């Protein structure tokens, strides 16, 4: 057995320090943290199922009966159908553009070693550190001049611009960890750059791309300040804005607001619960961690 194989065996057998029974205080702390982490959201779910009177009497406890009707009311009053549809369109559009743009960019920075690459990375970092409110108004002027105001495409482009720098850096740190041997072999054999990109890099970069897509999608779904400024037609509002408007709007019925909020976060929660292993593995192999 070679040295590398034996390491691999122990890797799969055990990760990290030797496992042993956790001390009770640590376990208690972990459980407490879990309750704190998820408790408020569970409570939110409870409130979504109460009637207003029940909520006034018992705001911290479970619902006495499950008023599923709240969800139906919230769905129509908060216009969640349009909100979710628009969110899907915007999120998918953003993911598509960002993956392509960040993919190309990351490839250039990780593999091709472009001249001035490090300076550009610095620029990307700084660019993602700018306060977004600062350029909200000038951006608005530009958008109306080129006719992208009040359109989902306009918002998609904005999100793509906002989230690409981080996505590029993320993807780049992932690409760096990929072994170079096969690309170099392919180049030596004369394969064109594009072939190298599509036949070799892309398949092994899929986990990283997937992670990037998830992170970008999450950011796009939750964002609300730009959404509320750049889309004025109530038929085109994404879910975050629809919820916010509902919350500030006609009713201060907190049970309905809770129901609407649950509707909004449900898709992302389910998505992440199902995909969280892939997501974490993506982050793990991204090379942002590691020795």
């Amino acid at each position: 057995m070679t040295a590398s194989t034996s390491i691999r065996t122990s890797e799969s057998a055990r990760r990290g320090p030797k496992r042993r029974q956790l001390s009770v205080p640590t376990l208690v702390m972990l459980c407490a943290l879990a309750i704190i982490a998820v408790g408020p959201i569970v409570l939110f779910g409870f409130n979504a199922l109460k009637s207003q009177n029940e909520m006034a009497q018992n705001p911290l406890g479970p619902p006495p009966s499950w008023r599923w009707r709240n969800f139906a009311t919230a769905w129509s009053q908060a216009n969640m159908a349009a909100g979710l549809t628009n969110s899907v369109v915007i999120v998918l559009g953003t993911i598509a553009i960002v993956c392509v743009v960040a993919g190309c960019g990351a490839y250039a920075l990780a593999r091709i070693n472009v001249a001035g690459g490090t300076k550009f990375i610095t620029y990307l970092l700084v660019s993602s550190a700018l306060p977004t409110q600062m350029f909200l108004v000038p951006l608005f002027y530009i958008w109306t001049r080129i006719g992208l105001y009040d359109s989902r495409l306009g918002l998609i482009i904005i999100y793509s611009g906002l989230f690409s720098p981080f996505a590029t850096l993320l993807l780049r740190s992932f690409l760096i960890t990929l072994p170079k041997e096969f690309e170099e072999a392919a180049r030596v054999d004369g394969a064109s750059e594009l072939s190298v990109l599509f036949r070799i890099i892309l398949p092994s970069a899929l986990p990283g791309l997937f992670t990037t897509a998830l992170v970008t999608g999450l950011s796009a779904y939750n964002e609300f300040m730009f959404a509320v400024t750049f889309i004025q037609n109530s038929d085109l509002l994404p879910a975050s804005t629809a919820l916010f408007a509902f919350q500030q709007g006609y009713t201060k019925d907190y049970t309905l607001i809770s129901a609407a909020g649950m509707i909004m976060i449900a898709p992302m929660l389910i998505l992440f619960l199902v995909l969280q292993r892939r997501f974490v593995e993506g982050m793990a192999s991204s090379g942002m961690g590691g020795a």
Partner: protein
Amino acid sequence: MHPRLTRRSLLSLTALTGAVGLVGCGKSPAPPVTSGSVASPNSTPVQYWTFFQDKKNEDYFREHFVKAYSGPAPVEITVKSTDTIDRLIQTALAAGKGPDVVLTPGPSYVPAYDKAGYLAELDAYAKKFGWDTKFAGWSLQASQIDGKLISLPASYESMAFYFSPEVLDKEGLKPPTNRGEFENFCDTALGKGKIPLAAGNADWKAANEWHITVFLDHYAGPKAVYSALQGETAWTDPIFVEAISLLKGYFQKGYFGGSVSSYFTNTFPTVYKQLATGQAFGMISGTWEMANLPTYFADGGSGSGTNWGWTTCPSFHTDVPTDVWDLGIGASIALNAKSPNLGGAADYLNFLTTDTKTITAAIEAVSMQPPPVKLSTADFTAKADERIRRLYTELPKAQNIGYTTWTFYPQQTETYMIQEFEKVITNKTSVQDYCAGINDQFKKEKAAGKVPVAPKPAGLGG
């Protein structure tokens, strides 16, 4: 966050915003209208951006102010959220788009819109439609900039002292009319473990200015305020310092909302509920509340079993009469200079603001806030709510008027007053410094000609 807007009856605002619509790109701009000329209407549909208090008001408005309108152009409305409507309109205007009829937070904000060139002049339309005779003179004057009419007052209002007659009767109290009675009223409430005045600014930071308005007008008095607005008295004058100190003292005693920290977190539903259930004995707020209160009282079937009543705010100084009506314009509407259907917009504007039949019907049905057009008791039917009819027949005859900060003060001064007030009641700023700041801000804006025209304090006459 914009002062005033939420608390105006939202319905009234929307009622007044006529939409002359900019529907989207691709419409060729209308030929520029020179001042003094009236554009003839065309049939381009009118887009209108507005907001409502609740679904009932929205539905009523659509039925009676949109569908029922039979002018040269059809009207289409888009409903926005109160918090964002101003910003959305401003940014849309800045980009050369936006609704044709522009809803603004009030006369102190219009100059900024006007200076940016967004608004069309209305003098020619005033002549055509005879607005001079239909609106109360003071309201048109306050809407002028450099002698030109730039906006129309969309609604007008005053400050009131609200209470529940049943609750007060049970406690053996009456609404206070002077300072002594007021302090007794509040102390009694505190003694019984109740809240003297339901109040809170969690939903609307600018609620601060309602109380500032009342104390400036009812302690320092209308004459002093008028003099300061003309630039003749400084805001650092002892009378104003005393007024604010008094208000601060009351806040810190817990008269407003029960405690200073509660005031910061009380939402409007909480405030109304407290008043309806007798947890609070009174509430100082604007007359726009008359549209909001019913849902929480017996009228709205909330089961609270109590009704609401109102009277004018008490006087806090022996020199100030007990029947001072603080005047306010809830919102102003203007016309978008770049509208492709200026004539049609003006026609709708006229309908919204001067069609007394529709307006009084709306007052009766949903407590809509009317614009300051001349209404008499005869305009109301027997079905009218007595409390509201009393308001709109007594207010125009007021003998003593006060000045609300959102109508007669310039915009930066008003903003300063609202925002710094919180530091005063939490002892982070002294009252002297606060007044000195107001004075500095006001002097600058007065010099720049940004102070709206105020009527003399001696009453409105007929």
